[in-house]
């Protein structure tokens, strides 16, 4: 929902389909693996349809998303210009602290009147 607001095409809460991870069994994970897939908890948003979903999805092993493991996150962005892939830590104390600090610094630089190019 935050992403949808950032791109200026808000998706309402009732436009989001949610399937909990709670029903996933070890059997499902192993069966997917055996058949050449990795089970991933995938978030999708379609800004044309204004719909989004979050659900466990079987991702082919060859797909880059299946290789994003542990606390790593990844997002594929589709635009009218091209496709983009962004991979990075989804959390972590030091990493997240830096992100918050970067936000504070960007405001400080702007308030202080020393806006850097791109800052």
């Amino acid at each position: 929902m935050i992403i949808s607001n950032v791109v200026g095409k808000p998706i309402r809460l009732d436009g989001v389909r949610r399937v909990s991870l709670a029903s996933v069994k070890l059997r499902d994970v192993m069966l997917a693996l055996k058949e050449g897939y990795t089970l991933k908890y995938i978030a999708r948003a379609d800004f044309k349809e204004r719909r989004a979903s979050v659900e466990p999805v079987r991702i082919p092993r060859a797909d880059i998303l299946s290789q994003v493991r542990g606390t790593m996150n990844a997002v594929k962005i589709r635009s009218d210009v091209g496709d983009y892939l962004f991979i990075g830590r989804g959390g972590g104390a030091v990493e997240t602290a830096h992100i918050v600090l970067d936000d504070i610094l960007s405001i400080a630089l702007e308030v202080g009147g020393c806006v850097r190019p791109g800052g």
Partner: protein
Amino acid sequence: MYQALNPYGLDYIDLDILYSSVTPDVHVELTPSDYVSEAPALQNVLRALDYGVNVVTANKAPLVLAYDEVMGRAKARGVMVRFKATVMGGSPFIDMLLSMRSHDVVGVEGILNATSNLILTLMEDEMVELEGAIARAQAPGVAEANVELDIGGSMLQPNS
């Protein structure tokens, strides 16, 4: 005991008292998300904006629950709201997305919840059931204290 050791301390924060004695440049909201009661983050953020204070939030609840209100209030007071840590917390994803000004973004797809991805990875690597993986994921302090927030899709859903 706490009071006795800290005669000048309070075990709570009253933003009105705080803001009546100091004039901060930036309010940094790091409280945990609560999508039901909205407390305290949404109230804190709106209060700060009303005082004309710039806001940085790592708590996504205020934006999920009231994006337009928060941004509208900031615009009205001429202050900034930054929220890079609310999506893909440890990475500068939002900045990149914001910089794609001429793009018509038609869709996104991905893995946006570190805890649920860690849980699935642990199930795969160590062949443990969901409960065992959750217990393991909570150990390094990655999972929310309320795991339902992670695995129920309510964290991801706000992100998407």
